[in-house]
């Protein structure tokens, strides 16, 4: 069953006693996208994933996954989902191949298909030829096996909770490349606090803060929405320029960065108009004038701080 939005949450509230883990979350994830789900620790990311996988039920609101209600999770729905929890735990007496075989059997995969898939996934996870029991694995190895088991059924929807948190740079790159490679073939919903991973991999993001969605948009649109821009100016005396632009209406932040002045501006057009004039007035030599975008990290901090 093709669904335009494999994940839809509408006014979802989840409480634990007096604590509102989720406080009216509304979210819609387009099919085939790689969707980044960002938020500081304790913002409700893992709780959201527990609702999506049918491990928990919402206190109120509507949760729809691939067009169905996930709690209690019907096996037909789970057969189309791959899930990696934040800290995956395995049967430690099994080997990686045995765990993948067990997982594949739960999905009812045919033996020849399963064996072929196990071989490919062990290769992807860097665990081919590892015959020791999972109990002896490092955290990174377990994380990579966690990603592999989430892919064993070739899912339509892949839910990943902090998939790169325990990986070294090389392992991280491989997993992010693999996630990016799924674009268009599966929908990937990917929770993380590593902004660089989202910038590198995702097309759309939602930022969760204290149980609420602070923003949801394609990354570029989100950057534009903050209404702030970055301008990098190179002059022969950056300190004088920095003092001169401090306090101007269009300038919100002035920072010295070696031979450059890094400005954060609210009105890019005004800055581009006035800056050369200021440089000329001071009699400085202009070596560089460059408009740049805010990083996702700055957008994230803006949105999260703005809500407090």
């Amino acid at each position, binding site marked *: 069953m093709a669904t335009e939005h494999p994940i839809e949450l509408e006014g979802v509230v989840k409480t634990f006693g007096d604590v509102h883990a989720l406080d009216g979350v509304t979210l819609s994830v387009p099919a085939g996208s790689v969707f980044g789900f960002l938020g500081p620790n304790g913002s409700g990311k893992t709780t959201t994933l527990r609702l999506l996988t049918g*491990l928990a039920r919402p206190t109120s609101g509507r949760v729809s996954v691939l067009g169905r209600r996930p709690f209690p999770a019907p096996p037909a729905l789970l*057969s189309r989902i791959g899930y990696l929890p934040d800290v995956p735990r395995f049967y430690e007496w099994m080997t990686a191949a045995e765990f993948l075989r067990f997982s594949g059997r739960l999905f009812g995969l045919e033996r020849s298909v399963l064996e072929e898939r196990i071989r490919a996934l062990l290769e992807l996870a860097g665990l081919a030829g590892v015959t020791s029991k999972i109990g002896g694995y490092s955290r990174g190895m377990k994380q990579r096996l966690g990603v592999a088991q989430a892919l064993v059924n070739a899912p339509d929807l892949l839910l990943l909770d902090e998939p790169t948190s325990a990986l070294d740079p090389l392992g991280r790159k491989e997993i992010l490349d693999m996630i990016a490679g799924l674009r268009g073939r599966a929908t990937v919903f990917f929770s993380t606090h590593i902004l660089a991973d989202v910038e590198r991999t995702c097309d759309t993001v939602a930022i969760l803060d204290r149980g609420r969605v602070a923003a949801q948009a394609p990354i570029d649109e989100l950057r534009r929405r903050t209404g702030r821009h970055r301008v990098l100016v190179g002059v022969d005396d950056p300190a004088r320029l920095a003092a001169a632009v401090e306090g101007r209406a269009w300038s919100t932040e002035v920072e010295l960065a070696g031979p450059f002045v890094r400005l954060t501006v609210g009105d890019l057009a005004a800055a581009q108009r006035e800056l050369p004039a200021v440089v000329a007035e001071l009699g400085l030599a202009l070596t560089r004038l460059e408009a740049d975008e805010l990083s996702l990290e700055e957008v994230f901090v803006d949105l999260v701080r703005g809500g407090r």
Partner: protein
Amino acid sequence: MSGFAAFARKEFAEIARTWRIWVLPGVLVFAALSAPALTALLPTLVERLGETPGFSIEIGEVTALDAYGEYLGNLRELVALAVLIAYGGLISGELRGGPAVLVLTKPLSRPAYVLAKLAAQALLLIVATAAATALCIAVTAALFEVGPVADVIAAVGLWLAYALWLLCLALALSAFLPAPAAASAAGVGVYVLLAVLSQFGFARPTLARLPTLAGEALAGGAVDVAWPLLTALATAAALVGLAVARFGRREI
């Protein structure tokens, strides 16, 4: 029941490859070996005690029936308590920092999860009890004589029905109580309560009477087991139903 066969297969592999293969079968083998051995040694032990001045005990000749009686006593106390302690975390054990999250987000229905665990452990209990009983009969035959084997089998069969009921009790408790130790303690509480109730007349036609009936069967007496077995079956089904219902709606 989606995923039952795959999950049951995992449960059997887990029994074979972890501590589970040693604990309950180990206790049963200990019960089977120690009963005839201690019974055979009893006259010597008593004789030694008799050498103490002012201390005198006289016992009759010990027989195969005494050895089987000792074995049944071990089953009723030692092994029954081992069942309750070993299975206090049957459901909750995998939920507390275990792999249940990975397993239950795959197409394994929750009833299948509960019933596969029950089936695997019940089979282990049945096979281990049969093997231990065969071992006990062999050792008893070597030390005494074969004795009333048919009565032994009838008695152990009744005890096994009771032990399977205790397994269902442990399953239900472990679905309701998140801490395995709490579930085991509650199970032991129910076990003691049933032992007390079995002394009263009104409890005669109930499952509480099964361990006592096992003793009577071993003695060769005619025992009416219909109502105790029926009540055991009905309450076991209710316990399993409660475990499935509770686990089916539980947040993980």
